[in-house]
């Protein structure tokens, strides 16, 4: 093998390796700057100028307009409380409380962050439109089939994620200090 062959082999392999690993690291959504709180993840610095390069590159690629700290926080869950990936064939119960916020919403999104088509045309719940227990607790049934009470349909059978947004919340600036029990739990109720 001559020198030129060796150099070109190394260059080609290096390029492939570098681009592949950059792509992979962006698709694995959040290596740095991500707080894991139970099943939920949050990037409290995502919208700020001091976000790390991976978070910034990830935002560029997704096109998302992040919430500022003063506006609120966005949490995302791809797994249930026991760490199992959310499955559209199963039924989940989300509740019973959230951290303090003027308003919050819970919605279902696909892998890219868009609402999923469903016959009920319901893509999320607002804190201001929920049925609640007498003590203020709430339970949202996340399932493809119709459920009594607060039903959040999943729509098509595909991988999905749950997004929780807290608007105007005093905890905004201190995401590191959120107790997992203050966030809604995601409990697998059964798979047919």
């Amino acid at each position, binding site marked *: *093998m001559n020198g030129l062959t*060796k*150099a070109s*082999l*190394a*260059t080609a*392999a*290096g*390029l*492939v*390796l*570098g*681009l592949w*690993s*950059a792509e992979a*690291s*962006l698709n694995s959504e959040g290596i740095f700057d991500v707080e894991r709180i139970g099943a939920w993840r949050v990037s409290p610095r995502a*919208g*700020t*100028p001091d*976000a790390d*390069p*991976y978070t*910034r*590159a990830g*935002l*560029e*690629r*997704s*096109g*998302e*307009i*992040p*919430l*500022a*700290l*003063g*506006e609120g926080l*966005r949490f995302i869950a791809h797994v249930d409380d026991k760490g199992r990936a959310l499955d559209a064939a199963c039924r989940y119960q989300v509740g019973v409380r959230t951290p303090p916020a*003027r*308003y919050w*919403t819970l*919605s279902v*999104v696909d892998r*890219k*962050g*868009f*609402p*999923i*088509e469903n016959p009920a045309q319901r*893509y*999320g719940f*607002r804190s*201001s*439109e929920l049925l609640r227990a007498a003590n203020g607790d709430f339970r949202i049934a996340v399932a493809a089939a119709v459920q009594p009470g607060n039903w959040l349909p999943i*729509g098509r059978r595909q991988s999905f994620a749950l*997004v929780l*947004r807290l*608007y*105007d919340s005093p905890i905004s600036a201190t995401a590191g200090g959120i107790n997992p029990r203050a966030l809604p739990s995601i409990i697998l109720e059964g798979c047919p």
Partner: protein
Amino acid sequence: MTERGWLSDAAAIALSAILLGALVHLATILVIPHVATRDAYARLAPLGAVNATILLERPGPTNRLLPYEDPAVASAFCRFDLRNGPVRVKARIARSGFASLSFHTRPGSVFYALTDKASVHGQLDALVLTAAQLRAVAARDNEDEPSQDLRIVSSSLEGFALVRAFSEQPSLYPEAERDTRSLVCLTEPPPK
């Protein structure tokens, strides 16, 4: 070639490939926000001219413009360009629900945000300017009558202002949209 020679060649190629790969990886991550073809600004820019107020379509499964938009929140934006002078940004919030006005740089970070709690008689009002424009404006300030302006320095010449309005019920979404339509962006004469 001996077996040993072949092995040391392979090792040298692998090592150079890994080193080059690491460089390519880092360069890719750092360059992405600057080439920015898929970020929020790049997606918003084709929708209208600078300073024009543009209402974003209601988030739903068929609206694929921006991911992770809240279906309960109406939004409108205007792009600003500070080359011709500071830009006055105003929004009128008529309802009691959550609303916010946030300012985003061209590369995508939020550099300022205020919520409806900061509104004066239902009006949110701010002046976006460059550091040089701020110095020029401040030099003309009358010390006896301090300016009531909220002045926000932008680190980038281009960017956009976004108004978000929360709808407490699905039926109130059109009213939230009406609030966001009150966004006004106006270039002021450059300070001399």
